[in-house]
């Protein structure tokens, strides 16, 4: 087993355990911190796949901006494990069973796919670098890129209107 397999296994186990802790933690602040660990593990996967731009953007946008926003809101509302609403035991059990069933069905459906032995290229290949991604983004995908700026503007206006005090 090479160092690549070890690294893949370590990052995968870290991501899965932290994802379970996100769901299992009573305290919402702990959930946010575990989710940040998941994002770091997924960024590690991106960097192993030599998708450097996506890896760094994942850290900056998700672990940096979005999770800080979540943490801000949770601390603003002063949520902790005492105020945490709990579902009753049976609906929690039903949720776990249906989620596990979904996983079984997806794995069973993909188990005999033709492509599953195909290799995902690690460490090599230059499509993940900023230069190549930027060239394609600003030629083929320039219209969706501009439309996403309109989306951001409307999201900004929407958040301000919804969050406004009064009436």
């Amino acid at each position: 087993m090479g160092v690549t397999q070890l690294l893949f296994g370590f990052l995968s186990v870290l991501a899965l355990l932290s994802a379970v802790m996100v769901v299992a933690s009573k305290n919402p602040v702990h959930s946010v911190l575990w989710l940040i660990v998941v994002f770091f593990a997924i960024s590690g996967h991106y960097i192993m796949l030599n998708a450097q731009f996506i890896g760094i953007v994942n850290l900056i946008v998700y672990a940096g901006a979005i999770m800080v926003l979540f943490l801000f809101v949770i601390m603003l509302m002063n949520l902790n494990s005492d105020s945490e609403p709990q579902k009753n035991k049976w609906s929690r059990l039903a949720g776990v069973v249906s989620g596990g069933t979904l996983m079984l069905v997806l794995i069973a459906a993909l188990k005999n796919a033709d492509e599953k032995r195909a290799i995902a290229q690690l460490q090599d290949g230059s499509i993940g670098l900023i230069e190549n991604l930027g060239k394609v983004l600003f030629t083929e995908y320039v219209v969706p890129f501009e439309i996403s700026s309109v989306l951001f503007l409307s999201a900004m206006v929407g958040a301000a209107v919804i969050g406004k005090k009064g009436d």
Partner: protein
Amino acid sequence: MQIEYYIYLAVALFSIGVVGVLTRRNAIIVFMCIELMLNAANLLLVAFSKMHHLAGVATNPNAGIDGQLFVFFIMVVAAAEVSVGLAIIVMMYRNVHSVDINFLNRLKH
């Protein structure tokens, strides 16, 4: 690395996100589990992009690059979604002093 390991990892992460949405009542945690599912899809998109790159690089040096651009756009949409969603949750907290999603059933009246 064979693509099947990435498929299994992404399926497991997605299912954990689904379990979180179904079992938690805190609206913020439900929202975080949706982010988890988006990230599982992103991971699989990048892995498939590198798989197609290896298969088609001989004819097209940019083979598979679309997958990584889709991930970029998913991140853009997720950022916009989080800002609006958290504004809605803050608004709900201001009105009912709770983030319990069961309080949202009064929307049907």
